[in-house]
């Protein structure tokens, strides 16, 4: 079972039925498609470029502006209309990623040392206004730091962090381990994490169900995002 597949399914499980979701791109967008196809058929997806979707895109999507993400959208409007709804408090869960994360759930996508990164995009706004956030990141020590070098995004609600090694809860109190992926050891996690973790509630990340696997295959038919090469 490769980590990308587990991450997509873990992301899907963060979306509850009838929720309004800022789905982002890449793995979270697949997670949205999987959630829609399994346990959350009534979830609604918002995109900062101005789109609102009630059905997943039919076809490969690299950016939210791609044709498959435009076609059969429910609404196509301006950035400020959709992000205004976010600021108004209409979004239940927002998906984000970054170069650095800390135990408080702050994200850095702007600069690390002399290295300049692309910047916030809509990430800072999503963190500020979504009721809760889900971060999806590669689990590497240089990314999981005591304090981020620059606070691009400061979440106002709780954060679930889904990584290549496990699922973690950030925010109020110490960072907690929710689950480790199968065959991932605490030692490995400790090596790759620059802040302390509370393991008291640790479980093993459940394997995808047949229905979830089927949904991933439908949403990513060529394995571009979740195949063995990833």
């Amino acid at each position: 079972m490769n980590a990308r597949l587990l991450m997509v399914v873990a992301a899907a499980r963060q979306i509850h039925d009838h929720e309004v979701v800022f789905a982002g791109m890449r793995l979270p967008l697949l997670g949205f498609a999987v959630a829609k196809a399994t346990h959350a058929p009534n979830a609604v997806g918002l995109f900062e470029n101005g789109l609102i979707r009630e059905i997943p895109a039919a076809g490969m999507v690299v950016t939210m502006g791609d044709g498959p993400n435009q076609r059969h959208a429910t609404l196509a409007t301006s950035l400020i209309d959709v992000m205004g709804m976010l600021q108004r408090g209409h979004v239940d869960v927002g998906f984000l990623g970054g170069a650095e994360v800390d135990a408080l759930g702050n994200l850095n996508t702007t600069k690390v040392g002399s290295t300049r990164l692309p910047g916030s995009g809509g990430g800072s706004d999503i963190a500020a206004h979504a009721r809760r956030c889900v971060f999806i990141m590669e689990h590497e020590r240089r990314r999981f730091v005591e304090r981020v070098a620059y606070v691009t995004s400061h979440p106002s609600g709780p954060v679930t962090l889904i990584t290549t090694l496990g699922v973690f809860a950030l925010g109020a109190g110490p960072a907690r381990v929710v689950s480790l992926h199968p065959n991932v050891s605490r030692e490995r996690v400790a090596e790759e994490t620059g802040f302390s973790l509370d393991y008291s509630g640790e479980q093993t990340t459940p394997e995808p169900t047949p229905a979830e696997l089927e949904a991933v295959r439908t949403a990513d038919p060529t394995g571009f995002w979740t195949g063995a090469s990833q």
Partner: protein
Amino acid sequence: MSKLTTTAEGIRRLVRDGDRVSAACGLEARIPFSAGHEIIRQNKRDLTLVGPISDMLYDQLIGAACVRALEVAWIGNVGAGLGHNFRRAAEANPPQIRIVDYTNLTYAIGLRAAAEGVPFGVTRSLFGTDIGSQREPFRKIDDPFGSDPVFAVRAIPVDVAIVVAQRVDENGNAHVWGNLGTTGDSVRAAERVIVIAEELVAPDVIRGDPNRTLVPGFLVDAVVIEPGASHPSPVEGYSERDHGAFEAYHRATRTPEGWALWRREWIDGIADRAAYMRKVRA
């Protein structure tokens, strides 16, 4: 009176050295690459580029040394990640460009303030962030009607907006569909507007579906009909995103020498967009 012209003439007449330019309104869609390449060929200098996201067009303008400053929320190559020219310019010591970091929403709010002719907009974003500590665009202020503070976002003026539409009439009235990004506010904020469209249509076609009109012609200075102007970015209803072109650019521009070669092949060595599209299809 017809406003029809060419990209080369429109850029020559309406983009001046030192201008504040919006060439990124549709985020990853409808990016005016042909106009950006013409700005490079005409060697415009000291531009301030504004926008939420322009995929890799702003990276090219930075590589060609047309840019003095960026006021943006995100800059790079969306499919591939970072933009090499941007990184080189930002990481140089001293930096070759000045950067004001926005978020997508705070950029849109600042642009809307400019579009409405007021000095600032307000937001509840930015609290607890280092972005919000930039004093030039943002100030924490008290809500005059309440107790909780908000952030004021200074209006983001635009000298020239270059926008891509699906179809336009010769007066500049333009239909745009798909995601709209910040297109409408960019046009309303700008002093000068260039509309580049896939198709020229009669005014009756525009008037037949006025809810689809995003750009009123009276705000427009130049109209260019140029199929493929946005390649490799997508135009809903006309063309799909050419992912391979973004990946190839990413690989080719890892070094300054690689960028110079790419520029020679795809910008300097090409007369106009028709020639570019022939090369893409070859």
